[in-house]
C-alpha cells in the first residue's frame, strides 16, 4: 500500500486493490455496464473493444486506447454494483469518467424499442432514490427506472422496470460524481406476455434495430467526461519528490496545498528541475518563496 497525493482526493492510501497498476486505464472516459452478453455485444462491436485478460470475476473489455471500457455485470443489483466497483477500482479509472448503465427494461408507459434516460432511479428493495442529471437529447425520453430484486410485472407504473440500474448508480457514485452516472434503458416489453417471450435472439434483434438511438448518448458521455477532465486535470505532486525526499504527514499536506497553487500561478512549472532540492524543507521553502511573489497580479492571465 502506498500513498498517493492527487487532485481530487488529497492524500489517500491506495489500498491493496490498486497495488497492481499495470492495467491502469487513466485515459478512460466512459465505462459502460450491461448485465448480459447480448446487451453488451453491440457496444463491444461499436467500439471495436476486446476482452482484457486477467480481469477477475467479470469480463471487462476496452477499446485499443482504453478510452472506453465495458463490463458485463451479470443480472441483479448486487452483481451490477460489485462489477462496477471492481472495474472502477481495479483499473484505477479516473474520477472524470462517465459511467453508463445500458440495458433492456420493461414498461407499460413507453413504446417498445424506445430509449429512455433515467432522471430518477429507485432501488425498490431499500426504497433508496437516486436523482440523476442525464443529457437532454432530442428524441430521447427521460423518466424513472425502478430496480427490482426479481423480474417485475408492475407494468401499470409510469416507470421503467429493471434489475440493475440502482446497483450501478449506488456503486458508481462512490467513485465519480452523481452527475457522471447515466442510465439508458431500451424498452423491451410492455406486458408479462412480452416479457416471457423475450429470448436472447429477440433482445439481440431489438438492440440491433434500435442501437442508433443510443449513439448520441455515447457521444455525449465521452464529451462530458472530456469536459470534466479539462476542468480538473492537473499534474499531481511530482512523484520524484515523494520517492526521493522524506516528507512528514504535515509536510505532505502543506506540499499538496502549495503545489496546487504553484502549478496554476507558474505555468512553466514543467521546466522546474525537480532534482535540485536536497530535502523536503527546501521544496516547501522554494514553493512558498515563489508564491509570495503572487500578489496583486493574481488576476493576470
Amino acid at each position, binding site marked *: 500500500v502506498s500513498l498517493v497525493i492527487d487532485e481530487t482526493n488529497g492524500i489517500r492510501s491506495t489500498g491493496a486493490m490498486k497495488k497492481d497498476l499495470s492495467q491502469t486505464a487513466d485515459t478512460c472516459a466512459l465505462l459502460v455496464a450491461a448485465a448480459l452478453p447480448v446487451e453488451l455485444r453491440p457496444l463491444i462491436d461499436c467500439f471495436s473493444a476486446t476482452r482484457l485478460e486477467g480481469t477477475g470475476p467479470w469480463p471487462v473489455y476496452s477499446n485499443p486506447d482504453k478510452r472506453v471500457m465495458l463490463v458485463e455485470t451479470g443480472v441483479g443489483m448486487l452483481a451490477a454494483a460489485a462489477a462496477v466497483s471492481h472495474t472502477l477500482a481495479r483499473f484505477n479509472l479516473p474520477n472524470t469518467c462517465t459511467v453508463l448503465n445500458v440495458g433492456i427494461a420493461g414498461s407499460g408507459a413507453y413504446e417498445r424499442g424506445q430509449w429512455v434516460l433515467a432522471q430518477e432511479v429507485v432501488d425498490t428493495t431499500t426504497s433508496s432514490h437516486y436523482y440523476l442529471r442525464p443529457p437532454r437529447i432530442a428524441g430521447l425520453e427521460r423518466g*424513472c427506472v425502478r430496480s427490482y430484486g426479481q423480474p417485475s410485472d408492475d407494468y401499470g407504473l409510469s416507470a421503467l422496470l429493471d434489475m440493475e440500474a440502482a446497483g450501478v448508480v449506488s456503486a458508481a457514485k462512490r467513485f465519480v*460524481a452523481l452527475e457522471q452516472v447515466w442510465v439508458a434503458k431500451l424498452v423491451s416489453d410492455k406486458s408479462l406476455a412480452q416479457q416471457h417471450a423475450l429470448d436472447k435472439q429477440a433482445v439481440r434483434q431489438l438492440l440491433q434495430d434500435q442501437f442508433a438511438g443510443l449513439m448520441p448518448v455515447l457521444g455525449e458521455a465521452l464529451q462530458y467526461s472530456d469536459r470534466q477532465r479539462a476542468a480538473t486535470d492537473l499534474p499531481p505532486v511530482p512523484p520524484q519528490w515523494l520517492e526521493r525526499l522524506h516528507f512528514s504527514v504535515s509536510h505532505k499536506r502543506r506540499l499538496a496545498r502549495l503545489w496546487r497553487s504553484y502549478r496554476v500561478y507558474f505555468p512553466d512549472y514543467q521546466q522546474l528541475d525537480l532534482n535540485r532540492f536536497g530535502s523536503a524543507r527546501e521544496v516547501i521553502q522554494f514553493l512558498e518563496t515563489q508564491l509570495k511573489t503572487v500578489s496583486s497580479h493574481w488576476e493576470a492571465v
Partner: protein
Amino acid sequence: VRLIYVEEAVREHPRTQAILAKYPTADVISCANYQAVFNRKGQNFRQQKELGPALILAEKRGRRVMAAPPGFGIGHQHNFYFSHLLNCPYDCRYCFLQGMYQSANLVLFVNFDDFMQDIRDTVAQHPAGSCIFFSGYDGDSLALDGLSGFLSAFLPFFRELSEATLELRSKSTQIRSLLAHEPLPNVVAAFSLMPDVVARKVEHKAPSIAKRLAAIKKLVTAGWQVGIRFDPLIQVQEFDAEYASLVRQLQAIIPVQQLHSVSVGALRFPVKMLDKLQRLYPKDRLLLYPFEQKKGVSSYPESLEQAMKAEVTQLVTQWVGADKLFSCEVA
C-alpha cells in the same frame, strides 16, 4: 428552469402550482423530502452549475428564523436571517455556498406564511426597532423574485411590521417588484459591489457592475433606501484607484440621505471550505491564491487585508461619514 423537483407536501400549494404553470415544459419529479435531492452526498456543485441548476420546491420545517453570526450586522441590536431560498443562480467563485452545500440546485421554500409567522414571533420577543432580518444570507434575495413572488408577499408584510427592518441583499437587477411598490422606510435594498475588473473575473453569470449601478439608480429615483456591500474585498492591481472610481460612481447616483449603510468585509474562507473549493475548481486563480492560514481561516496576509479595508473605509467615510459604515467580520 428545465428540471423541477417538488416535495410531495407542497405539491398542491398555490405557490407551487403557480410556479409549475410558468414552466410547462420543465421535467417535474416528485420527492418525499427535498433533502433527499439537495443533501445527498456525491453531487458535484461545479457540474450542477454547468448543467444549469434544477429548482426544488419544498416546505421549510423547523427553525425558519436564525440569529445572524456575530459580526454580521448594520447597526441593529438584534440580527436575524431567514432563508426562503437556498443557493443562487449566479456562480461567484468566492461564494461560501459552493463550499457549504452538496448541491447547486436552487431550493425555494414556498411556505412564506410560516416564515412570516416566525418573523412576527421573533419581533414580538424584542424591543421595537431593534430587529433586522436579512433575507439574502443563503441566497440572492432578488434573483428569483420573478419566479418566487417573494417581494409581492414580503413587502406588504413588512409594511405592516414597521418596527422591524428587512434587508434584501442581491446582485440582481430584478427590481420590478420593488419599483411597483411604494418605498418602505424599513426595507433596505442592498447590493454587493466590487470593481468591474474583478467582478468580470469572479462573479460569473451575475449582472455586470454597470447594470447593478443602473438598478440602484432606478431604486433611489423611486425613493428606496439602498445599502452598499463591499464584501468581499478582493485584491486587484490599482486597488485604490479602482475602488475610488467605484465610490465616485456611487456618489453620483445615490443621495446620502438614501444611503442606508455601507458594509465592508474581507475575503475569508474556513480552511476546510477553501480546500473543498480548490478541489472543485483546481484551476481557479482566486481560490488558488496563496492565502495565509490563521486560526482555521484562510485569508489575505493581515497587512494586506488591513490596507484594503483601510483604503475602502477612508473612501466611504469621506463620502458618507463613519455612522453608516459597518465592518463585516464573518469568516
